[in-house]
């Protein structure tokens, strides 16, 4: 083995040794390399980045949503000071009074549309490229579930400003569910928490919007990304490379050094 320079030794001590310590106990570095350093077809393009873009949009939604939850209060009761419902008052305060609240609420409000639009573009790309075919059927199915869950996020989030648009759009949305055969009236009454939108509807939608559905959505995204990593990116239809070629297994490291060096593990 070549004699290492002093600088190299310092890097080893400061960076690689702690990483190795962690990796030996958790496999985290190997896992990260498995996730990041994978074979990608030669002829991928910007089209293949739509999924990552949708993920980024989701992360923006999660972060801005968590911050908005610090200032928003899902109550239909009347604020005695403003004479308006508390939920609406807090939305007005976020938008008009709290510093940069307009920006974060705007990011969350418009980001919701961006998220759905990116999912649709991503879905169209996968469909037109035939990337849903063997062995990626389950990736497609989890993706469809992510789209449905994302729409549920939109449905439950739309009520939260508790203004006239929110109220009546949600009334229409709930009653739209109510027209489904057999179970429809039951579903509508479950969603509204009674025959009509009432005081329980708003906290119920809020809990679904920020706790239940995001939990499901994060789990689905995890499965989706795991499958994408495991199965690899498919070649475009015009590619000369064989689509669906199995990915070679990650070689065990030749030494105990895990070392985050590109190409040292993946191929």
């Amino acid at each position: 083995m070549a004699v290492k320079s002093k600088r190299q030794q310092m890097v080893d001590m400061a960076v690689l040794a702690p990483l190795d310590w962690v990796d030996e106990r958790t496999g985290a570095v190997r896992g990260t390399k498995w996730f990041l350093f994978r074979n990608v077809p030669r002829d991928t393009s910007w089209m293949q980045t739509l999924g990552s873009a949708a993920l980024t949009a989701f992360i923006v939604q999660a972060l801005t949503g968590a911050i908005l939850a610090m200032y928003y209060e899902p109550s239909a009761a009347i604020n005695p000071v403003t004479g308006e419902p508390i939920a609406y008052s807090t939305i007005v305060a976020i938008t008009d009074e709290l510093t940069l609240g307009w920006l974060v609420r705007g990011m969350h409000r418009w980001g919701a549309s961006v998220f759905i639009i990116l999912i649709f573009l991503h879905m169209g790309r996968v469909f037109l490229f035939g990337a849903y075919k063997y062995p990626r059927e389950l990736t497609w199915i989890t993706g469809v579930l992510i789209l449905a869950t994302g729409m549920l996020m939109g449905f439950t989030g739309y009520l939260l400003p508790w203004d006239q648009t929110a109220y009546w759009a949600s009334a229409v949305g709930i009653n739209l569910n109510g027209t489904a055969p057999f179970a429809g009236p039951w579903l509508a009454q479950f969603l509204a928490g009674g025959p009509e939108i009432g005081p329980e509807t708003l906290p119920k939608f809020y809990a679904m919007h920020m706790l239940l559905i995001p939990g499901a959505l994060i789990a689905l995204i995890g499965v989706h990304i795991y499958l994408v990593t495991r199965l690899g990116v498919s070649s475009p239809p015009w590619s000369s490379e064989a689509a669906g070629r199995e990915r070679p297994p990650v070689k065990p490291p030749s030494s105990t050094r895990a070392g985050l060096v590109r190409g040292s593990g993946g191929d």
Partner: protein
Amino acid sequence: LSDPGHDTPHVSGPSLWPIGFAIGVACLLLGLVISWIVAVIGAVFAIVFGFLWARGVTRDVREDVPEIEPEARAAAEEAQAAQAAADAAKAREPLPAYSRSHFLSASTLGLGAAIGAIVTLPVLGFTVLPSFTNIEEDEADLGPIDNFPEGEYVIASFLANPKQGEVSRRTAFVRNNGPADNGEPSFTILYSRCVHLGCPVQPNGPIDEENRKEIDGVELRPVLAQSFGCPCHGGLYDSEGNRRAGPPVRSLDRLTFSIKDRRLILGELYAVGNVSGTGANAQIARYPWSVPGTHVDGVEAWLYPIVPSQVTG
């Protein structure tokens, strides 16, 4: 892909027990709303079919057990000797149907499922049932009947449940029809929610704001209207609430009423299939209230055989 080995089925054919189990669970949940007898029947169904299902699923595993020989790790001749001894032992006493590890894994799974069910079922019940139980609304008092001029609609806005506050504010269009043929007072009380998808229907006519009254949280505004329109999707109703145009699937919902001390008291909400005749002489096809957009009469009503208001009253 055409490897014939892939074509051999690995699992036993589909079983009907899970469907019976699901019906039992559904019956149990429905029974919690309707009556305890239905719940008990559902529980019995769920238990019986669940047992049959579990038995069917584990049949292969249970029958395989006697064939497993976990002790066959020894060298060949030792194995033969052991085989002979085992055969002798087998001749003396039958092997147990369950090995210890099978029993332990099965009991762990079973206990886990039982604990999961004990935790999940009450939570599921609490998720669903409050939307369907104890939802009776108070009777709304619209004030003296003298405030309702004969033959003219009044837009009445009131709190259906004062404890809930403004969120329970409802609007109804009230017309005093004058005395009916039998001399009793008659009112036409249309509920303002469009029976297409629940938007607020508006009277098509000028509102007499000068004669607006507000008493005890009830707001009354006379209006000159012979029809009602919905701003959302263009539903149009005539003066009796019959659909004249647009997407609504039935006539406007109505409210029952009673008169106490010459005050108009609103009762329960009900759905209306069709109204023939007008005012005090109207023939109203009355049905239990259902969600807007659902048919209450005709063939399409078969799509909604049981609606919540029929069950919870």
